[in-house]
């Protein structure tokens, strides 16, 4: 594990670029293990991200760019974002709007950052299962015209039941139809979940976020969602498109999820980025468990909801589930300082 301690968070992009570049350079001199052996996860934190009224958009943008530099190892923003996205890509950002939702400011910052990869706003989509849920979470629907698109699978119209593909897809024990936003309108996927507790799965974050991409998530919740979370994400529809995960950990929830329960949220003020969604979820789980311990709650396993789907996902080669295999870069407040 490596930490980049910052006395002061740099919200201006230019400053962030320079600072992160130096930090990554410093990291590379310390890393004695093969770079490819580990998956990299970046946790970036700042008080401006922890505002109860919502994160400051400028702080989000700055944090994202700084994290992108650290994650990519590139020395400039253009190179960082271009590492994952091409200008001709249609980029679909899957948010989670069920209960505690991904904050729109996080998505807005991400959309701005994608501009560094020269992706036109019209080629980006913010989406979830339904128009209704997006609106309820504070998003503004935009199905045409200029600017970034925002709509639910059910807002697609046209052929297919409720906006889903007509071809049954299976990568495990259950068959599903995937959203046509994935199968027809996207080249690159970004999982943009919110970090929260889940009453059955233990944790819902970057992997389980894709339960919102299939027509029948209700069939996938037995056995703590194991191995079903891995099944959904292992299908080529997602596996071949998933480029990045950006987790909203600005006001995560350590208990009582997935519905929003303010009494169990806390101002962590973080964003978590990785190209390895399993590794990101493993780090998110560690944060959740640490917070639960601090406030005197039992570990998830003791509450009969251990997060076992991470091992299933690792077994399907979706990423690394062992902390020993994960390189964690902490920017700002230390990632394990959960208050």
């Amino acid at each position, binding site marked *: 594990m490596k930490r980049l301690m910052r006395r002061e968070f740099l919200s201006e992009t230019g400053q962030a670029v320079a600072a992160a570049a130096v930090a990554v350079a410093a990291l590379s001199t310390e890393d004695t293990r093969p770079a490819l052996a580990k998956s990299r996860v970046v946790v970036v934190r700042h008080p401006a991200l922890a505002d109860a009224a919502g994160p400051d958009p400028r702080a989000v943008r700055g944090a994202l760019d700084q994290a992108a530099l650290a994650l990519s190892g590139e020395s400039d923003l253009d190179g960082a974002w271009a590492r994952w996205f091409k200008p001709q890509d249609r980029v679909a950002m899957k948010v989670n709007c*069920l*209960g505690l939702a991904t904050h729109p400011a996080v998505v807005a910052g991400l959309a701005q950052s994608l501009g560094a990869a020269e992706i036109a706003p019209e080629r980006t989509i913010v989406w979830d299962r*339904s*128009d*209704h*849920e997006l609106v309820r979470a504070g998003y503004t629907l935009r199905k045409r015209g200029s600017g970034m698109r925002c709509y639910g699978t*059910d807002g697609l119209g046209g052929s297919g*039941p*409720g906006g*889903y593909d007509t071809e*049954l897809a*299976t990568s495990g*024990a*259950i*068959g599903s139809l995937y959203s046509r936003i994935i199968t027809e309108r996207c080249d690159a996927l970004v999982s943009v979940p919110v970090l929260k507790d*889940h*009453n*059955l799965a233990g944790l819902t974050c970057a992997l389980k976020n894709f339960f919102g991409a299939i*027509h*029948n998530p*209700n*069939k996938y*919740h*037995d056995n703590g969602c194991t191995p079903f979370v891995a099944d959904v994400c292992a299908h080529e529809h997602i596996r071949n498109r998933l480029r990045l995960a950006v987790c909203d950990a600005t006001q995560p929830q350590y208990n*009582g*999820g*997935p*519905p929003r*329960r303010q009494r169990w949220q806390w101002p962590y003020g973080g964003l978590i980025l990785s190209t390895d969604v399993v590794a990101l979820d493993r780090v998110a789980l560690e944060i959740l468990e640490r917070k639960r311990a601090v406030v005197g709650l039992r570990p998830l396993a003791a509450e009969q909801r251990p997060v076992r789907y991470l091992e299933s996902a690792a077994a399907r080669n979706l990423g690394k589930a062992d902390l020993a295999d994960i390189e964690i870069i902490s920017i700002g407040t230390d990632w394990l300082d959960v208050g």
Partner: protein
Amino acid sequence: MSTAPVTGRRAFLKTLGCGACAMCADCLLARAAWARQVQGRNQVAVHDAMWFETIEDNAVRCTLCPRECVVADVERGYCGVRENQGGEYKTLVYGTLCSVNVDPIEKKPLFHYLPATTALSVATPGCNMECKFCQNWEISQFRPEQVTSYLVPPRDVVQLAVSHNSPTIAYTYSEPVVFYEYAHDTAALGRRQGVGSVLISNGYILEEPLRQLCQHLTAVKVDLKAFTETFYADHCAASLAPVLDTLDVLADIGIHTEVVVLLIPTLNDSAAEIREMARWLVEHMGPDVPVHFSRFHPIYRMKNLPPTPVAVLERARRIALDSGLNYVYLGNVPFHEGESTYCPRCGKMVIQRVGYRTDVVGLEDGACASCGCNIPGVWTQEQALAVRRG
């Protein structure tokens, strides 16, 4: 097993207009006007669920089916049609028909229940299993907002049955357990107006709600999908034991029950399994429970297996008869002698079936016209409605 349901507005209207009672077409089309189309999350029909208990943190435990889903606020149960809304469990399919047909009662299949009559057959989306061989997966495996439906309250369902001269309403196609409240209220109302109700179900329901529903029902058909836990786990995402419990409860209640077994090549068609199943049915349901061995056709997620050979179905029938069952039928095998009913004492045919054409040829007052042997079943509407069971 039932055939594919009617879905979509055009088909819906066509069904209403061109059902079994053609002379009523005009009035039925007029009635179609009240069938308001609904689709989308904002238009699902929210209604209080009858079977749940609230637990901590606004979560609920569903007590309708053996899954007993624990559902957090804003989430849904396994069936996909029941949602926790702030600690209150709601059904989202009350009165939302996605399929309606006027079918021969033999199509359910119910062979010992008002033969040669029709059943107004209705369904909403949703199911509490996920069978890889589901014929109606395009409604059973979807959420209500993903399927075009029509708001048809219970009183209009009953009226529709009456206007079609259907003595029976069948809750079928998908899984009626998941639209329990709608079926319950419709069946209760129907009974008061002289219309019977039959449940065409997988039998995946807990005892208390089953007993309460049976107070309003006049017959039940249960799909016994196999006789091994392995099959239920591997191919239905479910368990056998609760289905057997349901059959025991139905036998205890005394409601007319028929059992259907879809035989799938190599998966549930061994002689040993058929024999064990037949013996269990004789012991728990009695030798007179009608049992239908139905022919599998490749569909949904089970397209890698061929249709069941007729010889396999015939073997199963022989084994079941030899095991002591008196009324064993073949399904999805038109023109086969195994479609008809024979007196177990003298062997004479009492009801002849050729496809969906049914002729009562040797049954008088519920007995064999030839030898007087009692043939168990529900043969008149008065008999169907006479007893409230539960």
